[in-house]
């Protein structure tokens, strides 16, 4: 329709007129990490650290700077792993806009012997989805922007999957 104002378009399926917002909102957050900065220090050294309350010894991963039980901010930093058992797994095929450029990726939750768990990418040969119960190793790699990131990889002994 020639005389439709610029800002109005017709929906392709329904033909209904839609006003196309002229104001784009762009959001990119800045997230304070002061209280968990040792985690990022660790990551640069290739270690994945959890925070541990010095008073009640509770372990926090993802780490947090305060213990809600003791109401104190007095934390030790302890290394996780190296092995974790796969509790749940998925391959993400429909990706969010900000991950649109990536290949389908595999994510899983691994449980460490200390009892805490972590969600991370799984890097297994051939983008294979390993079985629930598989023993994995946590490792530090780099994301596309050269930032260190933790991932799960096969144990050094191999895939170490449970028998079917």
């Amino acid at each position: 329709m020639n005389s439709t104002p610029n800002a109005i378009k017709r929906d392709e399926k329904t033909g209904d007129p839609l006003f196309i917002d002229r104001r784009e909102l762009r959001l990119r957050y800045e997230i304070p990490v002061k209280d968990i900065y040792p985690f990022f220090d660790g990551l640069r050294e290739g270690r994945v650290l959890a925070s541990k309350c010095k008073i009640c010894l509770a372990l926090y991963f993802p780490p947090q700077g305060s213990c809600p039980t003791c109401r104190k901010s007095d934390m030790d930093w302890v290394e996780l792993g190296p092995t974790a058992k796969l509790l749940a797994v998925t391959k993400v095929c429909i990706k969010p806009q900000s991950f649109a450029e990536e290949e389908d990726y595999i994510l899983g939750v691994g449980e460490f012997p200390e009892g805490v768990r972590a969600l991370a990418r799984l890097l297994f040969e051939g983008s294979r989805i390993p079985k629930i119960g598989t023993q994995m190793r946590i490792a530090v790699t780099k994301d596309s922007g050269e930032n260190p990131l933790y991932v799960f990889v096969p144990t050094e002994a191999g895939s170490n999957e449970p028998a079917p």
Partner: protein
Amino acid sequence: MTKVAIVGAGISRFGRRTDANMNALAWESVSAALEDAGIEQKDIDFYSVGNVGVWSEESLPAVTVGEYAGLTPKGTMRVEAACATGSAAIKVARDSIASGSAKLAMAVGLEKMYGVPTPTIVELIGRAGNYFWEFENFGLTFPGYYALYASAYMAKYEANEEDLALVAVKNHYYGSLNPFAQFQKQVSIDEVMTSKYVAHPLKLLDSSPITDGSAAVILADEETARRLTDTPVWIKGQGVASGSANLSKRSDFVSLDASVMAAKAAYSQAGIKNPVEEIDVATVHDCFTIAELMAYEDLGFVGRGKAVQLIRDEQTYKGGKIPVNLDGGLKAKGHPIGATGVGMAVEAVKQLRREAPKSRQADIRHGVALTHNVGGTGHYAYVTLYGLN
């Protein structure tokens, strides 16, 4: 607690609604609820608006809906509990009455998701949960959350993808009988099984759609309810619980603890001892097929690991042991996030009043209906029991 009843219920057509902006969409259900209750806007003392937003233009929807619908200057607020937002809106309206601060209150559920393109919607839903540790770093999506549960559930109970598909087949069947549903067509197991993976092992037809829609209920105290209607639908109990933001804080992935806790609280308030025996019809939160199976167990309809047998035996169809989602569920009726919980209440009201189309009207013997509304992946759970007595 003061008795509170629903005395009016309305719902919009669910779907991709390019014909109505947020306010007009809300008005469709608000006007129907007012009509149903036989009251005017001035009679309402307070209204809550359940809306998650960000994908839609209005950041103060409680106010813009109020202006459009003639509810201004009544007191109001917006509430959010992810996909359980609608039930949270009902809690606020109910507590307003039960506390004595209102006699008539309205809960409006509203979502206009198609205000932005689909990849942006996927992005926005994915950001819910724990932003930094799940989305920012790893791009975990909302289907991905439930897929993690599906992987663990299937491994533990030897369920397979066909079992999940049975839920989709049932809910599409009932969607085909609901003129307000987004998908009014049946699907076969084959169609479900051959649909594309969204997040392995969940496929497109395991998933509820992106939906625009609204629903509204009007609540009243006992005296007002009895004055307005012969068939008040009482809120007999409501349990509310939450789960960890980080999925990695959960100890297993076969059940939503928040659902279990919320159900327990709701049953206790309503005096329900044996849900399958005492509940006539349930609407449960089937945002994905795996979610409906877990709900069967979390709500105590069957024991752990027995959900698959229940759907295989068609016991959650009309006429079965416990009919579930006779409106098509989130799966086929659609899932306009903030409206879903209120839409469940509207369905409970219609079922209990025996106003559903015959083909999907449950047999109402005890006069009790259940709604189970989950926010995120068990981040929130609201279980509500409605009854004729």
